[in-house]
């Protein structure tokens, strides 16, 4: 008998005829790992919730979910509670909201032990401390009394995993456990999960939208689309020979960093269209404990040529978004200057003349909130025209709008819609239309595809690349996603805690990174290929607090190649044969693949 046996599962919500999960069947044996993959809306989380018995009251279910013989779907809560924590446990996606902000993390764990009478009160504290240590929280005694908001994202997720494994369950359900984390931290957490599982032979049901994560962590795989199962079987087999056409397409569309880029190199010697010269951005953080200065960006310089795509990569705390907003003039710079076509620009966007303002446009991360909910699509795209070309007649404006909508791949029947009536992909196209309608020379994309699913993401990226080929548009692409970088950039700039680590061409960066951080980041990205070499030892630790940056090179506390000098001096960005890098040991280290 399987550990978990799901047969013909269907889930529907009262008031809606369309099921969110339909006819789903799969099973998990003891000690096995199954990854459920699919895009958003596929029904993966619903399935996980059903398995745990956590569906809301208005959910109507059909079929059967059997755990070790016990039927879960119709079971009473007190029966389910006997299984929870001790036989089956769950790790949720967002550890910030999944942990109780009002209770100490130690107490939250201890409560599980006491509730299930796993041990007596005195022993419970000991066990909790032991688990905190096991999941990698340094100084467990002190961490016991800490509250969730005092921990970083990675640490919180470790606490969640610790809580889940406290009862020594046979099956661990993990719903997008690393999606909210930086890629280097993701590697740590996935490594932790692998290690803990191997120690206790716990089965794993892993939900993810990321084929790479599933490829590297699950022996079996189930692909879902629109509530239905597309394909199921051993991971290696599915990747090697998907039997379903849609599966094949999804696998092919999955962004990867190990394929060569398709961007063509640019002609040399062209004057840059944007010059960023020693720009620093700081914030005053005011709290009850007094104001402090946060240096988000520190003396950063780079250039962009017309028609070029430069990707600015970094994880949380890198300062990339602050940099983007400073370049475009939404926030003030503390020092330094930004030039457009050789002319220095005033710091704030309000002070820039209209003729210049229209040349630098931006597309934001969340497509729906970047559009005014009170305005229709046609009005949104028409507004820039009415400001920059006020003389244009209404009819001409309309034509421009329609043309632009078609240009970005939207039918003009969407003209009268409001933003909340659009899908994520459609909304982002409207945002792009709005940005491009005044024909800017530079477009900054701040995580513009991060909120979109794989296939839509691809389409948007292609749209941008096509635009670039047509009009010579320069793209500054801010992202944390290395596979996106691989796909579209000519050059890459890596940021860490407000400074540049490395600048290089796309090809060179991924083949022969020069900075240890770059290397660590690239190694951490899970590749959607089960046969790929397993990840090396992931980068340890997390980004230091921006309020208290380390002396010397900001990366040195986590760097395995650090020497004494690294903690004393800040390395400057220096040109080498293949780009620039800010590391004292760049010449000695060979970090290539």
């Amino acid at each position, binding site marked *: 008998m399987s550990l978990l046996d799901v047969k013909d599962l269907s889930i529907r919500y009262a008031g809606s005829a369309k099921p969110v999960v339909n006819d789903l069947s799969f099973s998990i044996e003891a000690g096995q790992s199954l990854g459920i993959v699919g895009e958003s809306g596929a029904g993966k989380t619903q399935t996980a919730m059903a398995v*745990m018995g*956590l569906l809301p009251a208005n959910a109507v279910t059909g079929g059967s979910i059997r755990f070790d013989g016990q039927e879960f779907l119709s079971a009473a*809560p*007190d029966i*389910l*509670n*006997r*299984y*929870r*924590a*001790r036989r089956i*446990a*769950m790790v*949720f996606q*967002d550890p910030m*909201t*999944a*942990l*109780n*902000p*009002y*209770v100490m993390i130690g*107490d939250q764990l201890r*409560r*599980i032990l006491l*509730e*299930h009478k796993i041990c007596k009160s005195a022993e419970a504290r000991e066990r909790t401390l032991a688990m905190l240590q096991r999941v990698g929280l340094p100084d467990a005694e002190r961490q016991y009394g800490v*509250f969730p*908001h*005092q921990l970083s994202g990675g640490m919180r997720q470790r606490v*969640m995993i610790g*809580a889940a494994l406290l*009862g020594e369950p046979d099956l661990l359900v993990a719903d997008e456990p690393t999606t909210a984390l930086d890629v280097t931290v993701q590697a740590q957490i996935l490594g932790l999960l692998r290690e803990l599982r191997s120690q206790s032979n716990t089965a794993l049901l892993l939900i993810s939208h990321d084929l790479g994560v599933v490829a590297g962590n699950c022996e079996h795989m189930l692909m879902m689309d629109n509530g239905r199962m597309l394909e199921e079987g051993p991971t290696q087999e599915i990747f090697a020979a998907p039997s379903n056409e849609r599966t094949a397409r999804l696998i092919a569309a999955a962004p990867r960093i190990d394929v060569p880029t398709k961007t063509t190199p640019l002609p040399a010697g062209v004057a840059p269209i944007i010059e960023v010269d020693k720009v620093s951005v700081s914030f005053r953080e005011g*709290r*009850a*404990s*007094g104001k402090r200065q946060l240096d988000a960006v520190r003396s950063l310089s780079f250039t962009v040529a017309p028609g070029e795509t430069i990707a600015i990569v970094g994880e949380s705390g890198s300062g990339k978004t602050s940099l983007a907003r400073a370049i475009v003039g939404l926030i003030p710079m503390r020092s330094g200057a930004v030039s457009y076509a050789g002319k220095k620009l005033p710091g704030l966007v309000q002070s820039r003349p209209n003729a210049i303002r229209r040349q630098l446009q931006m597309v934001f991360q969340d497509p729906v909130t970047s559009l005014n909910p009170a305005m229709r699509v046609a009005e949104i795209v028409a507004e820039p025209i009415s400001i920059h070309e006020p003389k244009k007649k209404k009819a001409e404006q309309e034509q421009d709008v329609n043309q632009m909508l078609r240009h970005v791949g939207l039918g003009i029947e969407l003209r009268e819609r409001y933003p909340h009536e659009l899908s994520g992909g459609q909304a982002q196209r409207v945002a792009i239309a709005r940005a491009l309608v005044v024909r800017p020379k530079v477009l900054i994309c701040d995580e513009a595809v991060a909120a979109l699913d794989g296939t839509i993401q691809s389409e948007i990226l292609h749209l941008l690349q096509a635009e670039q080929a047509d009009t010579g548009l320069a793209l500054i692409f801010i992202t944390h996603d290395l596979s996106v970088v691989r796909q579209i950039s000519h050059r890459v700039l890596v940021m860490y805690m407000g400074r540049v680590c490395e600048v290089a061409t796309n090809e060179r960066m991924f083949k022969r990174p020069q900075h240890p951080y770059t290397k660590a980041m690239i190694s951490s990205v899970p590749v959607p290929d089960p046969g790929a070499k397993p990840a090396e030892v992931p980068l340890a630790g997390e980004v230091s607090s921006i309020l208290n940056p380390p002396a010397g090179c900001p990366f040195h506390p986590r760097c395995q190649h650090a020497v004494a000098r690294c903690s004393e001096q800040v390395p400057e960005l220096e040109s080498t044969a293949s780009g620039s890098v800010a590391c004292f040991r760049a010449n000695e280290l060979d970090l290539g693949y």
Partner: protein
Amino acid sequence: MLRYALLRIIGAIPTLLLVIALAFLMVHAAPGGPFDAERVLPPEIEENIARAYNLDESLPQQFLRYLGGLVRGDLGPSYRYRDYTVAELIGNALPLSMQLGVLAMLLAIVAGIAAGLTAALSKNSFVDRLVTGIAMTGISVPVFVVAPVMVLVFAVYLHWLPASWTGGTDISRLVLPVVALALPQIAYIARLTRASMIGVLSSDYVRTARAQGLKTSSIIRYHALKPAMLPLLSYMGPALAGILTGSVVVEQIFGIPGLGQFFIRGALNRDYTLILGIVIVYATLVISLNLVVDLLYGILDPRIRRQ
């Protein structure tokens, strides 16, 4: 945390001063003087009276004199009740009003929380709808409607309780006024508690607790109760303000010689010092309570306590 506390305490003082200044200004800006209602007096006697009461000084001077008196606990003489100082009048009336107010607050808190929690835990059931409906009525029907109706029903028709302050025993004559005063607050608190608890019960961290196999009573006790009660703490300031306002009506209807009654009489008699004194007492009470609430919040909410 200490800084937070100090800032709050220091911040309360200007507020109090502002209130005193505003009230002072308004009272003195009124056309006519405190003695206008009486017989018209010959000018020399008017001057004498003015000097005796320091009304001939400039406004800022009078204000400073008043503040000085405040610090010493002297709220000035009553313009109406010549034999008494304002402090004495307030001293007599305050304990009664406090008794009413405190009992009403306690009743409101206990009944409100009980009702709110019951409704939240049996969401959308008949009990829940009943409680919600009654609460809605409670906040919609004003005190000056409820109180007389209660008197009509319980005193006049049923003869269970006395209709006014002068009849009946100590306990029995407290019942109607306290209940009438507490009713709107019970309703607000019940609604607030219900909404807050429902919000907490549908939060992600409660979902985690369920996933961890905790039974409902454990979830409430160890995970939900504290976060659900915090918004209630913030409401205590407005609750007190509401009770003070309501007490004016209740004292009027039941004929209770409390601060509310004196305020109305003072207002109608243009007894400026009395009005001023009562306003200051009320404001001090409310501001102090808000301060205590703020400090408690700082202690109880870990996100503020540990930066």
